[in-house]
């Protein structure tokens, strides 16, 4: 390298200061404008930049005003404080539901400390994992804002200390002066409450404890007192019965411990190729219930004829009884003869049951069962129920005494006698005039509103308790959340009035520890303890039973009215639960109302079988004993001639927003015969008045009417939607009732396009579902479970009337045969996840599409709500968010029901912050204007996959269960992977002769396989058709 210095200018050579300064800069230009912006005029570019920025900032700031919702992140290190709670991971607690009639061991799913879903406890030896609709919905009642937030004194908020002191003081003074205290309770199934009451009675010996059930089974206990020597309700092992004969009983839907019974019943009702056997179920009933709908043979009888029918049956099976007489219905007479024959051939393996609250009927039932030797095998008198412990006679006595004014204090333990007894006025006056009146109702209900003090009970999900549904078996109730409000359990309240302030948790723990064979730790883990070992027990004394039967003094006259219990609403105590109000009645498919059911023939005779529109029904004035009420009319197919039926549990006045003034209260019409509450009454008149009523009908039924019978149309059609066969045919051919499937498979599996190969989803998972129509009893548990799991909104009666309901899942009800006594089929219907889905290709924005696992999925955020997919869905399972139901609207809350002028448009049930706590955080709430539908519980699939992945294994069959599946009390629904050859779903699809797909010939390639319904009938069923009566 040379040392020569090259230069290009003199300045450079001389290295002048000016030169050096310039050379130090990269660009030989004046950059002051760039460096010192403030000193020069802004350039054009600067101007544009500034303008662009300010315009976009202004646009951002002003255009999108989205309401800010503050939330506390659940991300700080909770694990030190509450190690059980991992954000985003559900925690399950074993607990127990019992309302005095329903019972189930449960698992309660909690997320971040709040209970959000009820599941059945599969470990339970009694209920084996099922739930019913009421249990599913009960989680929403926890967040019911109508519940009292504080104890009350004279209908004003008070505190526990004050009311405890005052109540104790008053009790003491009343007791000292010898004044009588009435303690009115419902069924006493709770060990803890029972003990608390016993202690209370011990301290205040003037106490009379009266236990009653709004819908009573007292006659069963009383009859068993005569027949068996003790007032018990025995267990019935339906699984061991080959012949089941029901008389006005709804043991599957509303009967005592109905989940347990449904499980047992269905165990002997599913024929398979290897074992084509099922029990035979006959049902004599006045109105149509799900039990009647599930029966193989059904005979409509009037309530007043039930006794005669039983006398005839008893005589026919060899009982020594006189007074047989033909029934009015020909079918029923033939039925008795047929049933008697079958019962005689199944001695010891059959059962006759009735839920009618009539002593003589129950005695006859006992006599028949005793004659047939069913005790010890099917009827287990060793395992008896502690449910339905109410005593009608003591209620009647109490009412008489109250009328006479002989009680100074009335304490209502979770009962509402002003509403749900026929002694409404007596209780009202007695409460008002009592020296002390206390209610433990959780809300100021019809009775509590008149009480001086309300000591609100906690919800069962906030409570500690021990429930004994059956002798020797206990359900453990543990809180899943600390009490939301300042409420206290009844047992705790009773104890504190006695001066005992032991925490209830300790009381429960001590109680369990003191019980033999019980372990507290096990109880907490399992949610139950004790045994349900099958016993046998004594048999009924037939002659004693028969001796108790006497001739009827007055034959029934006029219209007979049956007051019945609905599957969802029950006795009315759950009336403020909108999920239950909106659950359609399984048979009538009516939501949000009670109504008078009339027989089809009667409707035809009166000319009210056709209405201007399906949902505008006639109104009738029903007069019973001089009192009358107006009710909408529903034509109930299968209703016995000359009878009406009206549901109890409606017409609440102080239940809360959802329950108030829904339907009419018919408790005041109940009457007592010989001290036993009777749920049917004769001498009623019905008069149709010129009004129509907008009924929240979920599935129209007027389509069955003759006016809609299109002339000249063939009667036999649409047989491939619901398929059914008889057991006799099934035994001959496992494809019976499903013979067209072979042809469909051959004929309709071709494509016009050669070489076009649709995705068959043979890789990875391919989700599918099996629905067994034979197992489905139509109870609706799955419908409510689905709604709770998937945050499906409740829309209210008005919206249901407009057919804008949102339930993702429904149970279609189809009639078949003679409209006076049809066969009924239930068909759970949800998204079929078609592999050739008609909804997918019509969406203009690709908001619905198919996943690689065969799921038809919805991208809610992409949906613009054209509803084209819903139109093109052949199963009509897509649901549109017609209004904003849950406050998920991006525009703010237009539909919160707070504007009086929008009342006609919306009724909101999910806008309260507290109520919204029930929402499942794994499922988004959908905003107004988007389509939604069954997702096969994709969040559960995802959870199952993640668990399997963490455990480094493949998914096993049964790892993922949908919400409808887990809720089902009869295992009618099974979910699984079609590609897993070991799965129940794959095996059923592959091997079951009963398997078919709805509308298979349309080539939608549905992923839900239905199993042909098998009825255990001797003869061919009437030609199958839907919504078509015999002409």
């Amino acid at each position, binding site marked *: 390298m040379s040392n020569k210095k090259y230069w290009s200018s003199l300045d450079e050579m001389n290295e002048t200061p000016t030169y050096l300064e310039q050379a130090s800069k990269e660009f030989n230009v004046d950059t002051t404008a760039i460096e010192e912006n403030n000193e020069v005029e802004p350039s054009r570019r600067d101007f544009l930049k500034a303008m662009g920025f300010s315009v976009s900032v202004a646009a951002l700031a002003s255009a999108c005003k989205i309401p800010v919702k503050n939330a506390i992140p659940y991300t700080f290190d909770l694990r030190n404080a509450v190690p059980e709670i991992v954000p985003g991971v559900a925690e399950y607690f074993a607990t127990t539901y019992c309302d005095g009639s329903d019972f189930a061991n449960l698992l309660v799913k909690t997320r971040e400390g709040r209970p959000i879903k009820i599941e059945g406890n599969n470990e339970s030896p009694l209920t084996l994992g099922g739930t019913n609709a009421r249990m599913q919905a009960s989680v929403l009642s926890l967040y019911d804002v109508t519940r009292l937030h504080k104890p009350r004194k004279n209908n004003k908020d008070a505190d526990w200390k004050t009311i405890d002191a005052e109540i104790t003081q008053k009790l003491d003074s009343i007791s000292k002066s010898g004044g009588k205290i009435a303690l009115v309770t419902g069924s006493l199934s709770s060990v803890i409450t029972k003990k608390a009451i016993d202690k209370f009675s011990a301290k205040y010996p003037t106490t009379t404890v009266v236990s009653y059930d709004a819908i009573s089974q007292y006659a069963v206990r009383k009859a068993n007192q005569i027949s068996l020597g003790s007032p018990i309700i025995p267990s019935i092992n339906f699984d061991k019965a080959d012949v089941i004969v029901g008389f006005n009983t709804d043991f599957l839907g509303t009967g005592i411990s109905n989940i347990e019974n449904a499980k047992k019943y269905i165990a002997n009702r599913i024929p398979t190729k290897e074992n084509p056997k099922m029990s035979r179920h006959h049902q004599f009933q006045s109105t149509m219930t799900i039990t009647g709908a599930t029966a193989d043979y059904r005979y409509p009888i009037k309530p007043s004829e039930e006794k005669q029918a039983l006398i005839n049956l008893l005589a026919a099976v060899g009982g020594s009884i006189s007074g047989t007489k033909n029934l009015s219905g020909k079918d029923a007479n033939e039925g008795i003869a047929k049933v008697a024959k079958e019962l005689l051939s199944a001695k010891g393996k059959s059962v006759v049951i009735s839920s009618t609250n009539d002593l003589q009927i129950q005695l006859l039932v006992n006599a028949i069962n005793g004659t047939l030797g069913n005790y010890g095998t099917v009827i287990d008198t060793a395992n008896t129920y502690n449910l339905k412990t109410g005593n009608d006679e003591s209620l009647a006595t109490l009412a008489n005494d109250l009328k006479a004014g002989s009680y100074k204090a009335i304490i209502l333990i979770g009962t509402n006698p002003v509403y749900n007894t026929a002694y409404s006025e007596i209780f009202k006056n007695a409460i008002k005039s009592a020296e002390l009146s206390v209610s433990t109702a959780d809300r100021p209900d019809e009775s509590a509103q008149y009480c001086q003090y309300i000591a609100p009970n906690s919800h069962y999900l906030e409570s500690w308790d021990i429930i004994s549904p059956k002798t020797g078996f206990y359900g453990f109730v543990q809180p899943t959340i600390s009490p939301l409000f300042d409420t206290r359990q009844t047992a705790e309240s009773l104890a504190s009035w006695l001066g005992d302030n032991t925490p209830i948790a300790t009381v429960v723990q001590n109680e369990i520890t003191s019980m033999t064979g019980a372990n507290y730790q096990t109880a907490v883990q399992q949610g139950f303890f004790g045994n349900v070992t099958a016993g046998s027990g004594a048999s009924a004394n037939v002659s004693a039973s028969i001796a108790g039967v006497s001739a009827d003094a007055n034959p029934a006259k006029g219209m007979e009215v049956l007051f019945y219990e609905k599957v969802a609403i029950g006795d009315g105590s759950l009336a403020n639960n909108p999920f239950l109000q909106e659950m359609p009645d399984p048979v009538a498919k009516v939501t949000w109302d009670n109504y008078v059911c009339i027989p089809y023939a009667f409707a035809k005779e009166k000319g009210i079988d056709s209405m201007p*529109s*399906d*949902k505008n029904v006639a109104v009738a004035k029903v007069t019973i004993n001089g009192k009358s009420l107006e009710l909408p009319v529903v034509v109930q197919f299968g209703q016995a001639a000359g009878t009406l039926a009206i549901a109890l549990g409606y017409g609440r006045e102080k239940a809360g927003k959802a329950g108030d003034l829904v339907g009419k209260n018919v408790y005041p019409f109940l009457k007592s015969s010989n001290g036993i509450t009777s749920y049917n009454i004769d001498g009623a008149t019905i008069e149709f008045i010129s009004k129509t009523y907008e009924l929240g009908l979920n*599935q*129209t039924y007027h*389509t069955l009417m003759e006016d*809609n019978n*299109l*002339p*000249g*149309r063939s009667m036999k*059609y*649409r047989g491939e*939607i619901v398929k059914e066969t008889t057991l006799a045919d099934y035994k001959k051919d496992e494809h019976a009732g499903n013979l067209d499937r072979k042809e469909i498979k051959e004929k309709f599996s071709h494509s016009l396009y050669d070489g076009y190969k649709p995705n068959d989803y043979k890789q990875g998972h391919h989700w599918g579902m099996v629905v067994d129509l034979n197992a489905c009893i139509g109870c609706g548990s799955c419908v409510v479970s689905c709604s709770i799991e998937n945050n499906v909104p409740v829309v209210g009666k008005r*919206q249901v009337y*407009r*057919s*804008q*309901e949102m339930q993702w899942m429904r149970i*279609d009800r*189809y009639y078949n045969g003679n409209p006076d006594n049809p066969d009924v089929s239930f068909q759970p*219907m949800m998204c079929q996840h078609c592999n050739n889905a*008609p909804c997918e*290709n*019509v*969406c*203009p*924005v*690709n908001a619905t599409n198919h996943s690689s696992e065969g799921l038809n999925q919805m991208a809610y955020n*992409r*949906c*613009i*709500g*054209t*509803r*084209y997919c*819903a*139109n*093109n869905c*052949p*199963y*009509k399972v897509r649901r*549109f*968010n*017609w*209004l904003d139901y849950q406050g998920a609207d*991006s525009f703010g809350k*237009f*539909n919160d029901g707070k504007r009086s002028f929008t009342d006609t*448009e*919306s009724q909101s049930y999910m806008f309260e912050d507290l109520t919204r706590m029930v929402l499942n955080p794994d499922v988004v709430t959908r*905003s*107004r*204007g*988007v*389509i939604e539908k069954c997702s096969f519980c994709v969040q559960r699939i995802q959870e199952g996959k993640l668990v399997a992945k963490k455990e480094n294994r493949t998914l096993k069959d049964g790892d993922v269960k949908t919400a409808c599946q887990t809720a089902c009390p009869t295992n009618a629904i099974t979910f699984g992977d079609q590609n897993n050859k070991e799965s129940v779903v794959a095996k059923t699809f592959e091997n079951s002769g009963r398997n078919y797909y*709805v*509308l298979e010939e*349309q080539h939608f390639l549905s992923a839900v396989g239905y199993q042909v319904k098998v009825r255990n009938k001797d003869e061919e069923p009437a030609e199958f058709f*839907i919504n078509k009566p015999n002409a």
Partner: protein
Amino acid sequence: MASHFESPLREPLINGNKTYKDITNDIVRPTTGKIQPKWLFWTSVSAAVAGLFVFCITWEVCFGIGTWGANKTVGWAWDITNFVWWIGIGHAGTLISAILLLFRQKWRTGVNRAAEAMTIFAVICAGQFPIFHMGRVWDAFFIFPYPNTRGPLWVNFTSPLLWDVFAISTYFTVSLLFWYTGLVPDFATIRDQSKTKGRWNFYNFLSFGWIGTAKHWERWESLSLILAGLSTPLVLSVHTIVSFDFATSIVPGWHTTIMPPYFVAGAIFSGFAMVLTLMLVARHVMDLKDYITLAHIESMNKVMLLTGTMVGIAYLTELFTAWYSGNMYESYAFANRAMGPYWWSYFGMMFCNLVSPQVFWFRKLRRNIGVTFAMSILINIGMWFERFVIIVTSLHRDYLPSSWVYYSPSWVEIGIFVGTIGLFMTLFLMFCRFFPAIAIAEVKSILKVSGNQYRQGQLDELKDQKVYDNVSVDSKNWD
């Protein structure tokens, strides 16, 4: 437009011995001068009804589609019924301006301007329904295939609704251009008649500074021809694509291959009916009897007779196919249309669309203003029923009887439909007031051929030449 030979026996298309100046004056007159109280009254009424549209749409957007009677089974009801009805009405304009132009039907010149305007207003009304029937109208732009950062996430090109978007936006654009192109020289005519500076400027702007040079006319003619060529396929394609919304679905009663021709015929049918309704009123009110002659009315009635009968044949073919297919759902759908709870709409459709247009077999009735007006109204009603029958009665009872419902509209739906009629009438009345309702330049182009004085002259000439010996060449035949 180059004139060509036309038989002198043909009826003249311009009555009243008009000169070019008369034509200019007659047609420009309604746009100048004082606003008539009659016009003001009807415009106010229409605007008030259009206000009802705004109110009902606001209500629906604020509270949700749940304010409608549409439901889980009947997802589309009055909304899409109205959409298809309005789109169908819009068809006449393009048919007249494009297809009849190509077929050299000179009689079109009298009615094409108003018909095209009607097309545009009808498409505007129609366009409201697909937009506002969306549950989330604020996300309506998702329907356009715009580049985005979400993947990019494209629209679903297999969805007929997307085809609708393209079909209707194209149709609207081309119709608007065609209409405006025709208006340019006429705006210049109005400008030239203007007495105030403001008016002059306004119409000069609208006419793009048209000065009527030969070059202008040449370019104008070529553009008209190009646009006519472009719109011709659109006449057939738009309603074909609208019919695909139904034809490509699986709903029994929708899924039929007859839909496209049947829809196109129906669209032209209803479009002509609406043109007649409006033209008969305009002819009367604006005193344009010399330009919209009985010859025009008779021609349009003939088209309605043809298309009405085509539609009727389609109705009967559908019934036959439903029966012949042996498909129980299909046959039920059609039996249900005729005999189900919506029998009255089927009856209304059959009577108004198939039976009643048969009166036009009689020349006397074709040329009777009263009968024509009554028929045009009947056909408008009948075509609305047709869409209602197709949409609602197919949907309300499809595959699973468990989901069958009876649909009735809510006040919001009725308000929106009535409101669009108000919107349409407001736009049309504004058009009549501010724009030349008849194409001045085009009418002038046929004056020398079809003006009655020239036609009479030709006839006289022919009489002298004794060309038609046996034919009575008497202009009385025209009436």
